[in-house]
């Protein structure tokens, strides 16, 4: 087991910088998820930790030892690839034991490790099959098994569930979570799926265009995002963003006018910064933070466009002026396209961002 520390890590491909000085501390035994949209540099970061990509600047340390120039095989890590990367011509058993056999590991120890991995992942029955005779979920288990037999200090997962169907993804997510509890090893997991990040992580690292936007526990990111990007990325369905402007500031609060909703106003208490009067801002409201008319600080009328009824909860896609809002409603089965209704916003359940997306607290 080992801690992983990234200090000012930079990656350039030719003259093009894709990771701009990442600083991340991962504690021993922690489960950290790198999340972000395609091209944000999360996989590149993971591959640099693995040693599959060179580091253009900064330091990567595993277990307190700087690994910049250490061969991938000597870093004490194991990696699970998105495409599984199983050896197609070998049986499951050979896939699991290949690395150990090639390195002259004693047979008894290899057998013990392979047996243990097979038991943990419940793939004992599949040992003599080849990858093409396995389902996607089984292949993924074998790929994880191949990582387990290495008995690494750090597990790296590169979007391991993105090739599985929705049901299997949920199942494997639970298994990976259980595996982390069972092994207690540091795990770094890359995904673009914020649900995976929220459900698996001890801490999430949100990345955008090669920059670390925020690091924190899943619910901390959800409740207290550092900026508009994190607020929009974490949470499903996405947070709603309403165009607004500051019309007054007084007594530790700002009066905000929603510009697309007929001059609706609300008073938002602020602690740190007070934007100038007239400044354009954005008010963020999560779908579940729209209340019934009159319950909040500011009512806005909307017209339902489409309603998704998921059983326990419904999401109503509503139009409010030029803005489309997603409103979560319990027991709103009767709500259908074309309905007019009013939602209410509470100041304390909304977030304020400036024009460039930085949070105003």
């Amino acid at each position, binding site marked *: 087991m080992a801690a992983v520390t990234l200090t000012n890590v930079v990656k350039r491909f030719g003259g093009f910088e894709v990771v701009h000085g990442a600083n991340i501390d991962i504690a021993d035994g922690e489960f950290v998820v790198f999340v972000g949209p395609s091209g944000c540099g999360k996989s590149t970061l993971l591959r640099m930790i693995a040693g599959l990509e060179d580091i253009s600047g900064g330091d990567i340390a595993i277990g307190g030892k700087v690994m910049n120039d250490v061969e991938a095989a000597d870093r004490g890590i194991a990696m699970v*690839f998105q495409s599984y990367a199983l050896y197609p011509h070998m049986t499951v058993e050979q896939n699991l034991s290949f690395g150990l056999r090639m390195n002259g590991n004693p047979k008894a120890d290899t057998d013990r490790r392979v047996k243990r991995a097979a038991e943990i992942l419940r793939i004992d029955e599949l040992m003599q099959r080849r990858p093409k005779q396995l389902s996607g979920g089984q292949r993924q288990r074998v790929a994880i098994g191949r990582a387990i037999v290495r008995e690494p200090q750090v597990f790296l997962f590169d979007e391991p569930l993105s090739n599985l169907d929705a049901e299997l993804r949920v199942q494997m997510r639970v298994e990976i979570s259980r595996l982390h509890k069972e092994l207690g090893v540091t795990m770094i997991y890359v995904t673009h799926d914020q649900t995976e990040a929220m459900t698996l992580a001890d801490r999430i690292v949100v990345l955008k265009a090669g920059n670390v936007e925020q690091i924190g526990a899943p619910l901390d990111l959800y409740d207290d995002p550092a900026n508009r990007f994190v607020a929009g990325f974490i949470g499903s369905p996405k947070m709603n963003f309403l165009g607004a402007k500051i019309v007054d500031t007084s007594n530790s609060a700002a009066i905000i006018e929603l510009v697309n909703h007929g001059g609706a106003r609300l008073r938002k208490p602020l602690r740190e910064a007070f934007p100038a009067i007239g400044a354009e801002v954005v008010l963020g409201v999560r779908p579940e933070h729209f209340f019934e008319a009159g319950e909040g600080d500011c009512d806005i009328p909307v017209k339902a466009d489409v309603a998704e009824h998921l059983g326990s909860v419904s999401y109503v896609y509503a139009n409010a002026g030029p803005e489309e809002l997603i409103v979560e409603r319990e027991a709103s089965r009767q709500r259908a396209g074309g309905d007019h209704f009013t939602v209410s916003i509470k100041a304390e359940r909304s977030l304020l961002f400036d024009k460039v997306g930085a949070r105003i607290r």
Partner: protein
Amino acid sequence: MRTQNATAYRFLTPYLLIFAVFWIWPIISSFLISFQATRTVPWRFAPAFNWGRLIGDPAFYNALKNTLLILVIQVPVMIALAIVMAVLLNSPLLKARGLYRFAFFAPVVVGEVAYSAVFRLMFSLDFGIVNKLLNSVGLPKIDWFSNVTPAMALIMIAVTWRWAGYNAIIILAGLQSIPEDVYEAATLDRVSKVRQFFHITLPLLKPVIVFCAVLSIIGTMQLFTEPFLITERGGPGGGTETLGLLLYRQGFRSLNFGYASAVAYTMAGLAIAITLVQLWLMREPK
């Protein structure tokens, strides 16, 4: 559906007619001819005449021996060379990849007569660059065309030069279909590049290598151009005569079509048999 099929077959008819007349019929006809004595007028049915002669003909055994010798030495050497060339072509370190790919493939598009003439010049006893090079490093000249062993070697060198690049391009396609992350997984498993080649690349290339080997076996069984043009009709003294050349001599020099047909069927039978053995040896384990 039936109407559709009928329409399709009506459109196919011109092709099928040509196929039947110029492909199917010659195949059947030559098989029938192999059972006839064709040096008498009129031809007469005599099953033992050609096939019996084949079994006891020293010229046939000489040609068979030469063909098999070329097959056994040249094909494995060429395939091994093609694999090495493909791996080099696939290397990320290689610059001007397109140029090399073209250069390796170029021998296939060069005219057979032109390439044979160049080889004859290059290996000429007194004027050839090969002997000059041998001399320059202190080795004696070799008379490539007058002695059997050098002549056979020359045939093998020529065939290898002509077809190694072609096979390398096919193998390169196979190499490029192996996903990069399999190698990355092996790197993380601390498997050296050399072991990756033998334990991952070669096994995964097996189907492509088998394909190349089968094509090469069929090609070598029919080998004709090189011994005909480079070593002057299988010379010296039949030392490089192949089955293809024997067939030509019997069929088109001696006009002994029956015997030539028997030789042709023997060549085809051998090619099929060797290929089947090859496929069986290289079969995928269950």
